[in-house]
């Protein structure tokens, strides 16, 4: 386990500074290459035919006319993908089932949502490809569809899978349904807990599916050679995972597929899984040409997983002095057309900020005729936090307690048991709440029609498998390669940690993202794991390199390696006279690499454990226009325990970005379907993500409670920030209008209706 540098100890030279990131200049000059920016000689354009129906049986697909069109080089359907075994494999949280996954890439027996891929073509131009799509004849038997999660649970609801028996129910139900799974976590005795409560608060909440809204549509370029070897240029959150899933879906050996990481134009969880990669590979295999596929925004909204919608009921029992004695939550999530929403995360995270002896979280995973949900920033947690934190706000108000004081009084500490069993071991929750309470803005007075809302949120953070390669170049500069997709500047944090460890300047280190053929396996850049897990691999590789540098120095000095120490980027040993020190800088050692044994480099692969969770506490002030229901966010302050900020500017950016997404989720973002089950707003005009003029300044408060299991104390920073945001906005609006809001988004018509004295909620 790597030792930690705790504050007060050894002074950090570069970690904690704000240098320009290694990939910065190409991104401001337009030269950085994203998924859609790659081309190859002889390249074809791939396009995908999608279902116009929400639910239909495919009687037949006739591709002959499309294939006959001049300029068309290949046409594919699901028949070109190998059938997969029906079994849930891997982590229960994701419960991958390749039988579902291959049907997600391209429909087989049925189309399960509008926009479901049914066929694809590769042609010499976009125009010819579009024309070819129009020539593909699909014979559909349209079936009744169901969009809404509560309707999908009704006994008479149309079934997406005629044989789906709910998992996790004993005894197993005898009838099939759209309920894919039930899960439950429980500690203590909730009946006894509620019996001991002075006050019980309960409410039911609904949220709509929302999209990650990354600005770059999915895009890739594939080349499949006649010898069965293939190369893929793709923008994803993890090129190793894209390689693993794509090779399995296409039916090839992992070793025959090499994936190059394109710059990725936003992911937020939506680019953890492949959509276009298997299609491009098959089209390339069939046509013998490289094939590029770039999705349209419309396709991204219709077919690339959004976050789940939900209906949730939360019940909390408190004593009159504000101690929470029992909590019960039922969280029902829309999985979309195939099983497995992040409802398990929702169940595990919702009550975890608190020290509650008696807790139960029940989750239902429900399919309906919508695109399969994908991960979205702390998947599941912001949704359950919205329900839990809204109810906490009601509980605090019911006894006239300051909502942050109420949370601080009940906050979890090391030793507090989580609903899923283990006890918390890391500090930081209480510190973060206190930091927010001390923010001067928290005590500023509010005006008419204004309200202040607070919320807190928990996210696991993650560790896992990462690889890093550190190479000392001939001139003493250093190359740091990892296999972690860089979504937002992690190359800079890797370079900072390497420079700190080696004792050299940041500008002497160049960090890159290596392809799957050039470095060992790295997990996806998700779960706020990269700076933690890949960072550990980088630091360990640097330490190996330091040992090697000491050995080389010892050889040069003809000394014993034990007598050589490494300090400030130099090998040092005691000199002749008293107090004298001889030094050999890294540059000098690199110059002698040949005679001392050749290139100096080290690769380290780890499975990083000792993860510390993320925690955020936020408040926001809003003003509601009582005549229109319009909500203006006046101020937003977000405090997050980041462990240690390796690059503070990038950490602040993570917090500001997460909050902005949370505000959009709370106020205006939603999937809107028409009666035919077709998405009515598949574009950025009517799917309203916040624009610059919608948002206030977002103040990020960095709380640094180091994680002893990371060399510099880093915790994950990418996700915890969005967890409280939805509830913070909802609590602010509810307090501004004096009515509890229970539905997201809080679009103006909903707020105006709540304000109506006759019909207010």
């Amino acid at each position, binding site marked *: 386990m790597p030792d930690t540098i705790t504050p007060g100890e050894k002074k950090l030279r570069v970690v904690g500074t704000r240098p320009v990131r290694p990939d910065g200049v190409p991104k401001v000059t337009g030269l950085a290459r994203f998924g859609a920016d790659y081309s190859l000689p002889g390249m074809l354009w791939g396009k995908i035919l999608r279902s116009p129906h929400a639910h239909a049986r495919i009687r037949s697909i006739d591709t002959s006319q499309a294939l006959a069109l001049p300029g068309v080089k290949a046409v594919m359907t699901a028949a070109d993908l190998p059938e997969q075994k029906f079994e849930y494999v891997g982590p229960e949280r994701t419960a991958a089932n390749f039988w579902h996954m291959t049907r997600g890439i391209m429909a087989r027996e049925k189309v399960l949502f509008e926009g479901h891929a049914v066929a694809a073509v590769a042609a010499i131009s976009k125009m010819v490809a579009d024309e070819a799509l129009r020539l593909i004849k699909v014979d559909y038997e349209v079936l009744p569809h169901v969009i809404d999660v509560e309707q999908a649970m009704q006994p008479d609801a149309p079934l997406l899978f005629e044989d789906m028996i709910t998992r996790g129910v004993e005894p197993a139900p005898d009838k099939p349904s759209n309920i894919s799974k039930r899960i439950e976590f429980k500690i203590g005795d909730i009946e006894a807990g509620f019996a001991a409560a002075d006050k019980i608060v309960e409410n039911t909440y609904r949220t709509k599916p929302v999209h990650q809204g990354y600005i770059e549509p999915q895009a890739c370029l594939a080349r499949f050679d006649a010898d069965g070897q293939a190369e893929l240029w793709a923008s994803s959150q993890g090129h190793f995972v894209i390689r693993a899933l794509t090779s399995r879906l296409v039916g090839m050996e992992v070793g025959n597929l090499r994936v190059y990481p394109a710059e990725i134009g936003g992911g937020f969880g939506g680019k953890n899984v492949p959509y276009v990669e298997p299609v491009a590979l098959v089209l390339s295999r069939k046509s013998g040409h490289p094939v590029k596929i770039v999705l349209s925004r419309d396709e991204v909204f219709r077919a690339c997983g959004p976050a789940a919608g939900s209906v949730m009921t939360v019940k909390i029992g408190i004593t009159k002095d504000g101690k929470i004695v029992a909590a019960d939550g039922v969280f029902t999530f829309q999985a979309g057309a195939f099983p497995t929403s992040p409802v398990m995360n929702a169940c595990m995270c919702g009550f975890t900020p608190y020290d509650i002896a008696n807790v139960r979280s029940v989750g239902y995973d429900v399919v309906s005729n919508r695109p399969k949900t994908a991960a979205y920033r702390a998947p599941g947690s912001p949704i359950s936090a919205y329900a839990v934190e809204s109810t906490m706000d009601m509980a605090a108000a019911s006894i006239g307690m300051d909502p942050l004081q109420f949370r601080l009084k009940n906050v979890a500490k090391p030793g507090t048991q989580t609903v899923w069993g283990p006890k918390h071991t890391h500090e930081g929750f209480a510190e973060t709440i206190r930091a927010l309470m001390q923010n001067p803005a928290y005590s500023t007075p509010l005006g008419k029609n204004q309200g202040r809302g607070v919320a807190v949120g928990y996210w696991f953070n993650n560790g896992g498998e990462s690889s890093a390669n550190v190479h000392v170049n001939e001139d003493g500069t250093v190359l740091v390669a990892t296999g972690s997709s860089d979504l937002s500047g992690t190359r800079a944090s890797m370079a900072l940690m390497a420079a700190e460890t080696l004792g050299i300047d940041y500008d002497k280190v160049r960090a890159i993202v290596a392809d799957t053929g050039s470095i060992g396996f790295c997990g996806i850049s998700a779960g706020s794991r990269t700076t933690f897990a890949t960072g550990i691999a980088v630091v360990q590789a640097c330490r190996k390199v330091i040992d090697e540098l000491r050995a080389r120095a010892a050889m040069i000095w003809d000394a014993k390696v034990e007598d050589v120490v490494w300090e400030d980027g130099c090998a040092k040993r005691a000199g002749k006279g008293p107090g004298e020190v001889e030094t050999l800088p890294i540059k000098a050692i690199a110059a002698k690499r040949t005679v001392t044994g050749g290139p100096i480099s080290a690769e380290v692969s780890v499975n990083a454990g000792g993860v510390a969770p993320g925690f955020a506490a936020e408040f926001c002030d809003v003003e509601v226009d009582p005549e229109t*229901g*319009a909500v203006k966010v006046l101020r937003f302050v977000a405090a997050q325990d980041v462990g240690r900020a390796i690059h503070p500017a990038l950490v602040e950016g993570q917090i500001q970005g997460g909050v902005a997404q949370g505000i959009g989720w709370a106020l205006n973002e939603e999937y*809107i379907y028409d009666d035919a089950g077709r998405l009515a707003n598949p574009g950025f005009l*009517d799917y309203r993500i*916040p624009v610059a*003029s919608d948002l206030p300044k977002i103040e990020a408060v960095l709380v640094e409670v180091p994680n002893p299991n990371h060399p510099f104390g880093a915790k994950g920073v990418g996700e915890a920030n969005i967890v409280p945001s939805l509830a913070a906005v909802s609590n602010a609006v509810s307090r501004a209008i004096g009515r509890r809001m229970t539905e997201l988004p809080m679009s*103006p*018509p909903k707020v105006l209706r709540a304000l109506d004295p006759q019909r207010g909620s």
Partner: protein
Amino acid sequence: MRYEAPRTLKAALALLSGANGHARILAGGTDLLIGMRAGHVIPELLVDVKGIPEMTSIVAKNGGFRLGAAVSCMELIEHKAFAKAWPGVIDGIKLIGSIQVKGRATLGGNLCNASPAADSVPAMIAAEALVSIAGPNGKREARVEDIAIGPGKTSLAKGEIITSFLLPRRLPHSGGAYLRFTPRTEMDIAVVGAGVNLTLDKSGRCLQARVSLGAVADRALLVPEAAAALIGSRVDAAALENLAAAASAACRPIDDKRGTKEFRIKVAGVMARRAAEIALARARGKN
């Protein structure tokens, strides 16, 4: 698909009347290109009118203005004299999409696209603007409110082009304003829009007024009943309440993804009242 960029109105008219297939006028293209991309519109001939001088110029004459129908919104916004004379029209133009979209979008396009939610249209109707139309049978003039007859439908005959908009000389103590409601502050389509234009006499009484509403019916409405609530009044609280009530009463909205009937009816009154308050302040020479 053919593309032509005639330099004269005559040439443009000839191209349009000569077109046997489906011809479309290309001005800003901010709606047409989206329709083409989606495959909703598949023209055989595009007639780009941005090369025609009388359609791309702003002419101030005896106190009034003639605005080329193909002048971009940004040019109008940056035209100091026009912006000073008709701030209410500028209010509407400023709301047509992003700066980028306004760099291309035109008044002619915004009107002929015939969207009930077009932001410049209620402002122009309130301003009592006229349009000059050229066609195979010569030139004619029409009121802005008579062009759109339903979503995507106009009263223009085949081969007719709107060449320019005419705004009259303003009487003293006049003021106009356009307000809309959207969930976002920018980059959005009006859920409700309200344009108000009024003139006061020396004593501050409302001499004349025009009120127009957008996005509350199948086209932008001129609402005389709402104007009547102001005319003769001192535009005081009571008159403004009557205006709001009349505006709400005039709505014939639908439920759609952008708003509900109930919401549109309520908010139409609010927008009309608030627009009138701004128009009043402007008429009194404030801001």
